[in-house]
């Protein structure tokens, strides 16, 4: 009989992150809710399981707007934009609190606490690798669009987590993710600056920065493809 993989460590982290996120004093709580949800989603995907996935997505989505704003509020942005971000944060926070107070939030934790471990015969990286490869195929190698590369980074994340659940070497994927990290941050900053809509010059500067980051990322694409191929 092969090794089984229990999700309990990350379920415990999700439970305590929900408490910290609900208290609202430490932004790390909201961040950890999202991280734990992503880790557990990768665990389900690795085992080809579906039940629980939509609950994690619901929780992750509920925490998303506050998390994005928490990150942007630490960035060097014009004071007027910072004030706008502050106001947006105050608008987003009650929706998150409402979600965390719903019985579904705690029930999601209970659901995972009750689940059995993944059995070795359940483990299959195929679907995760397919999704990452598909995202990679969508990237135009000559004129890479920053949003497309941002999607690649997002699709590589569950691949990395699935490897880590299996205690396999995920360094190659982690390095690519780190390399694309600045681009992903810039994508979100650009998106919010455009939503703010008060500084067109800054938007243009961010667009130029994004293009540059995307161009710098293009030469790494063949290596990502090869890494994914090697994992099959």
């Amino acid at each position, binding site marked *: 009989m092969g090794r089984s993989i229990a999700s309990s460590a990350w379920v415990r982290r999700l439970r305590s992150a929900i408490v910290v996120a609900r208290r609202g004093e430490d932004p790390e709580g909201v961040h950890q809710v999202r991280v734990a949800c992503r880790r557990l989603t990768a665990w389900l995907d690795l085992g080809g399981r579906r*039940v*629980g996935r*939509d*609950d994690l997505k619901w929780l992750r989505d509920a925490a998303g707007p506050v998390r994005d704003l928490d990150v942007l509020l630490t960035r060097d942005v014009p004071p007027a934009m910072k004030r706008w971000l502050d106001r947006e944060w105050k608008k987003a926070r009650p929706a998150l609190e409402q979600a965390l107070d719903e019985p579904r939030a*705690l*029930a*999601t934790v209970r*659901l995972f606490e009750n689940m*059995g471990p993944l059995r070795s015969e359940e483990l299959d990286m195929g679907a995760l690798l397919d999704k990452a490869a598909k995202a990679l195929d969508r990237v135009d190698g000559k004129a890479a669009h920053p949003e497309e590369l941002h999607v690649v980074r997002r699709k590589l994340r569950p691949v990395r987590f699935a490897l880590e659940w299996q205690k396999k070497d995920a360094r190659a994927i982690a390095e690519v993710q780190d390399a694309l990290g600045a681009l992903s941050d810039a994508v979100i900053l650009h998106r919010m600056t455009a939503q703010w809509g008060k500084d067109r010059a800054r938007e243009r500067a961010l667009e130029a920065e994004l293009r540059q980051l995307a161009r710098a990322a293009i030469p790494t694409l063949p290596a990502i493809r090869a890494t994914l191929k090697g994992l099959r």
Partner: protein
Amino acid sequence: MEVFLVRHAVAVADGAARTDAARALTKAGRKEFAGCVKGLEALDITFDALVHSPLRRAAETAELLVPLLDGRTRVDPALADRADGMDLSTIAGERTALVGHEPYMGQLASILVVGSSDAARRFAFEKGGVLWLQGTRAAPGAMEIVAMLPPKVLRALSSGRS
């Protein structure tokens, strides 16, 4: 709209898991319910929402129903608790499956068909059994019975198809 109340399949006995909530389906229970799913398939039954209790035996039963789902799943703790605690307005799909436990499934059936949980004992759910209801909305007394599908019948339907 249609609502399918499903009692979880056969699980390991009390005491065979670290908690009651962690009781898994038995190998035979899993196999038998897979046959029930085929029976539902033979009736062309599909779901656009699949709601289940957070208890392992219900979640594992729900997982076996996933091939019939074209929509989302949702955990609802009320399905492991008193049925009169369930917010019926959350049953919003056109074809929703609810996977839970006795006596709560009987209570829920009674509420939806009769208007109160008083007749719960008349809705005797076998493990893996399905009660098929229809109505204009999921509200007390607003639904009628289409069929009670015990597991034996569902499995017979599945073998009749092959």
